[in-house]
């Protein structure tokens, strides 16, 4: 369960996130939809304890964002898109192991988990190869394994498919669906309407740092009399821009 309470983040004069509140129930996928620079990444960075909120807080699995950041880090996993962020000179196994150790796991636990992940994600063939020469899809699989090595109950996805090819995007989508089936709580940030429509139970539309709408997909369609999420988004954001 994630409960976000009046979360704000200011960078000098810029208000990146402004008084954002929402809840994500256990086992649900919440889509954070917004344009580039809307405040999605800053919100996720605050929830992942990388940034300190200027005001407000969040309760993640009963831990307070401000009071218990270390406990929160043990509860979450995060997957980024874009550059992915792996150590090219380490093997896939070493990359995953490093994050297991930094999450307090012992070697035996890590080894067992890596074997399972390598099988599930079909990485057995290249698990001991250095990741420098991997394709983006292969790298994203390693990043997926890295993000769940410590079995977090909550997952954050920050535009995880950005820059990936169709096959790699499908792997990420399947992974999210699997996590949902396992009952994990997920916040998924994206600017792709299709992805959000396909994967999320509930959607929050963030614009210029403010949460302008929160609803289930069905609720949005009924409220705005539109079948297409893209149309709903454009009309909502356009309205706010006027």
């Amino acid at each position, binding site marked *: 369960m994630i409960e976000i309470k009046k979360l704000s983040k200011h*960078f000098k004069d810029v208000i990146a996130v402004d008084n954002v509140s929402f809840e994500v129930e256990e086992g649900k996928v919440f889509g954070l939809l917004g344009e580039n620079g809307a405040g999605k990444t800053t919100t996720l*960075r605050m929830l*992942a*304890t*990388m*940034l*300190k909120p200027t005001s407000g807080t969040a309760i993640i699995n009963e831990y307070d964002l401000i009071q218990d950041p*270390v406990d929160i*880090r*043990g509860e*979450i*996993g*995060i997957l*980024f898109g*874009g*550059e*992915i*962020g*792996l*150590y*090219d*000179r*380490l093997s896939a196994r*070493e990359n995953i192991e*490093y*994050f297991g*150790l*930094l*999450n*307090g796991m012992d070697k035996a636990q890590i080894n067992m988990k890596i074997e399972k992940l390598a099988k599930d994600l079909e990485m057995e063939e290249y698990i001991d190869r250095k990741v420098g020469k991997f394709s983006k899809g292969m790298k994203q699989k390693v*990043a997926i394994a*890295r*993000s769940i090595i410590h079995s977090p109950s909550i997952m954050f996805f920050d535009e995880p498919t950005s820059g990936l090819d169709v096959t790699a995007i499908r792997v990420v989508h399947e992974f999210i669906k699997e996590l949902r089936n396992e009952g994990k709580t997920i916040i998924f940030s994206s600017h792709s309407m299709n992805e959000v429509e396909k994967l999320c139970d509930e959607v929050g539309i963030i614009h210029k740092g403010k949460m302008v709408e929160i609803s289930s997909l069905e609720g949005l369609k009924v409220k705005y009399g539109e079948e297409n999420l893209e149309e709903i988004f454009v009309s909502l954001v356009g309205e706010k821009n006027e």
Partner: protein
Amino acid sequence: MNKFTRVVFKKEIIDTFRDKKTIFSSIIIPIIIFPLIAFVFGIGSSDIEKESKEPVQIAILSEEKNELESFLLNHKDINIVKTEDAEKALDKLDIKVIVKIGENFDEKIQQGEKPRIELIYDDASQKSEIGKSRVEQIISGYTGYIVAKRLENAGVNPQILEPIDIKYSSVSKEGGTGLMIFSMMLPFMLTIWSAVGGIPAATDLGAGEKERQTLEPLLTTKSSRMSILMGKYFAVVVAGVIATIASLIGFLIATKINPDFLGEGTTLSIKAIGIITLVCLEMALAFSSIELAISFYARNFKEAQTYLSPVSIVLMVPAYLTMFVDGRAIPRHYFHIPIINTIGVIKEVIVSVYDMKHILITTGWNLLYIALFLTITVKMFEKETVIFRN
């Protein structure tokens, strides 16, 4: 070192020494640079040495036959070259010096007058310059011979010109001039490498991590920022120490290639090595920290390289300033000046001066710099505006 710091340290060491760029700049370059200098230096110096052992080629311009010409002709270190255009020969360095003997040379000598001779040489040429000095010495010997003859003719013992017998003996236990050169170069080299040896690793572990976007996932692990930072810091220190050791190996190879390079036969005691290791480690600890802070501040690898390059130049200034300072007479206030104090201590122990006060003052200051720089680095690593500057 806590558990997470150990994990980060181990990973960073593996990652750093798998990087060809780091291996090249931290190990290969320090190992080959001194042998290379020694080799080039050896070629140059052996050429000059060869030149100084062979007879000096000169041309004599004289109106008539005289005793000086005969003296030079018979001297084993002089080779008189017959040439029609002496100046042209000098220009081409076929000869090194022209000895122009004035008119009535012998007559003037006999009458007790002062005949003139002119040495024409090329001061832009090292070979001509050396040749001039050698000819000057030979003519000075001839002058001494004339003076002695005149004194004898006057019934005076020529010994009267040397009322004091000077005996030269050096107090240096070993090494002599070699030790002097050694004490000039070694502190310079050790201090520079201890301070800058960690730069390639620091660039990669700070700015490199930001550029690859590996820092963000790292900050979401259970490990504290302090543990991550310390793991990286110790890795940069180790890289700096390895670079220093590599430069020492290069130094030893250089002295084998060319024994004249930096003091033949000079040795360091265990005590001296211990003190040098201590102050060099202090330098590595202080500079690794500030290099890591700068690297974290930079947005990317290139920016970090731009910011870190001046560190080497900043270090060169005090290193050059103290290069010619006598290891036995370093002013006390030098031990309060950063970098210069470290070079000072190394210079002292090389010439067997073990001044505990100087060592303690230097170590005290260095510890202060380490604490100060580490505090700055920790503060910077905690600052969101630094970590997420890109």
